[in-house]
């Protein structure tokens, strides 16, 4: 692979130049397993979800649910659960920013300064994944507990008041989200940074660019695909997450995932479904704007 093909702007024309003149059915045939998978596990559930979101909300398991094209479910969901929806997006954005602030230096250090410890460091990043998601979140309950070292220290330093606590606050929920999704940001970012051609950096410095300018004009743009992929992999699941809020939050930190789960349990399928569709639409919209802004459409 030549370095040039990775430069921004070089990709689109290269693709059309290389494209074969004749297109057979082979490609579609090869795509069919993936396509079938998409139909069974994405299209069908989505259609069912959208259909359920339009059922008559007064239905029950006893009476069944009638399809009445009840669009009002959507306005009801927004009115009743608007705050949780906004809160979810807000928490997810904060957690993503925190992940970038921590994850970029980490990925950079591994890619550029890792040397022979590179693999070891990568294993260290994913090591927490050897334990289940649930157990990792539960251990945060312990770390942030009211009578544990962290809170005691912060109280002693008067960062927290004598009755102040961390667990069951928005801080704890966002910490949990940040912690749980950090590796999803680091890994793709590392993959992008790792393949940055070092000769480009040498060239930059030969042309009198300071290390900072070289980073800003060479490394950062070349790592954009990884950064965008990483932030998406962090933001999207974080916005729909409910475990962190369930285990580390309080009644006022509930996210939309918690509400959807409760509505399903309470048997209110139409509202739960419309809320799910709204969440999905909101995420798709935000991601589309973000990707367009970031100028890395080729990635998605």
């Amino acid at each position, binding site marked *: 692979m030549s370095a040039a093909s990775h430069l921004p702007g070089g990709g689109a024309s290269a693709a059309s130049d290389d494209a074969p003149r004749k297109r057979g059915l082979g490609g579609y045939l090869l795509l069919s397993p993936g396509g079938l998978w998409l139909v069974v596990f994405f299209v069908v559930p989505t259609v069912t979800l959208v259909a359920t979101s339009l059922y008559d909300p007064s239905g029950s398991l006893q009476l069944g649910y009638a399809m009445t094209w009840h669009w009002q479910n959507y306005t009801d969901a927004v009115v009743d659960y608007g705050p949780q929806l906004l809160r979810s997006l807000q928490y997810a954005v904060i957690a993503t920013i925190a992940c970038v602030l921590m994850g970029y230096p980490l990925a950079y250090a591994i890619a550029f300064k890792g040397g022979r410890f590179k693999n070891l460091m990568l294993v260290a990043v994913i090591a927490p994944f050897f334990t289940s998601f649930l157990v990792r979140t539960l251990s945060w309950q312990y770390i942030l507990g009211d009578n544990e070292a962290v809170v005691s220290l912060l109280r002693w330093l008067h960062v927290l008041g004598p009755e102040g606590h961390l667990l069951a606050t928005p801080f704890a929920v966002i910490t949990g989200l940040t912690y749980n999704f950090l590796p999803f940001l680091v890994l793709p970012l590392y993959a992008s940074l790792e*393949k940055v051609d070092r000769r480009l950096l040498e060239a930059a410095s030969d042309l009198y660019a300071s290390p900072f300018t070289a980073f800003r004009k060479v490394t950062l743009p070349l790592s954009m695909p990884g950064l965008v992929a990483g932030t998406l992999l962090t933001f999207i699941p974080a916005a729909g997450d409910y475990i962190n809020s369930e285990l580390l939050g309080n009644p006022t930190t509930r996210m939309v995932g918690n509400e959807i789960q409760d509505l399903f349990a309470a048997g209110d399928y139409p509202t739960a479904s419309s809320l799910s569709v709204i969440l999905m639409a909101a995420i798709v919209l935000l991601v589309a704007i973000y990707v367009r802004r970031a100028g890395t459409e080729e990635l998605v």
Partner: protein
Amino acid sequence: MDTDRMRMQMLAEALRAGGPRAGRGIGRRNFLRGAGVGALALGAPSLLAACGTQSQVQSEETCGSTDLSDTEKTLIFSNWPEYIDVKGKRMPTLEGFETESGITVTYNTDVNDNNEFFGKVKDQLGACEPIGRDIITMTDWMAARMIGLGWMQELDKDNMPNVVSNLKTDLQSPTWDPDRTYSVPWQSGLTGIAYNAKYTGEVSSFEELMTRTDLKGKVSLLSEMGDTMLFMLLLEGANPEDFTDEQWSAAIGRLEGYVGSGQIRRFTGNDYIRDLNAGNVVACEAWSGDVIAMQYDNPDIKWVVPEEGLSLWSDNMMVPNKADHKANAEALMDYYYQPEVAATLAAWVNYICPVEGAQEAMEKVDPSLVDNELIFPSEDFLKNAYGFMELDETTRQAYDKDFAQVIGA
């Protein structure tokens, strides 16, 4: 470790490959266009087909079951965690049953929460499909709901002489199963207040639990609607066994106020135990047996009968439709209604024993528990205990929604 590293490298490779050159062969735009048309073509008819769902109610006629107990000596039993006697890795009473009957029991502790379990099995039961379990154990209101939906098999009393003769009188005819046709109680229990004496003084009423300023942000309530709302109704001066819509709204408003004031830290399932032990929560709404079990490890944990009253409930064994081993299930239910077996079980789980004669049998098992009011409550002890009013499906859904909305402010 190696596979994870491989996976990681594959992820890195995939991302590397997914750069600007990924669009070869089938153009991205073309593919998306094709996929969109395909999705529409497939989606439109199924959208029409998915219009509405039928009633999920079943009956003997629509969903009959066969019993293979004569040939298959097996039984699958789903129960709540920490709800059976354990010695090391063995379960003495259950092993006793296996030896006595020759039936092999698979014992699962996969019932963590009534609603959660309901969510897990409702689609199969509603469509008259087996759920792979011969006995499930559900709390009264959920048992009522499942029986109401016609999802449970009728039990044969002739196979259960011990149950017929030893089931306590006060449990014989709940409103939702007046003749105990579909259900047999496993254990009963009480909901009250627990506190951690290391961090706070005695908390003797719900009034205190909800308003004492030194408890602010350190109180948890149960996410089980029937338990928590029962106490809110009592605080409203209403009778939880017979209340009006207005009283319900007032009780919900009251709970909303407590949530808004920041008094309540969390709404929990069984997991309040952890928070209470660690002192993150210093006082909470709690189930009696859990707390007694906790006291063995942490004597600071206390359980009190709230001044307002108690919530009394039972968990009931039932045989779902399409379960293949009804007679085996009945044999197990009958076995656990022998007073000696019931006493052994109660001595370990510390919940209220539903079996007449178990108190006498307890003399031999553990004499110190004979007068334990939490296992063998006297009439006087239970005079302030309430059940929760039976609700029809529509009202339950409405109330559940009200409750869900408040606990998730």
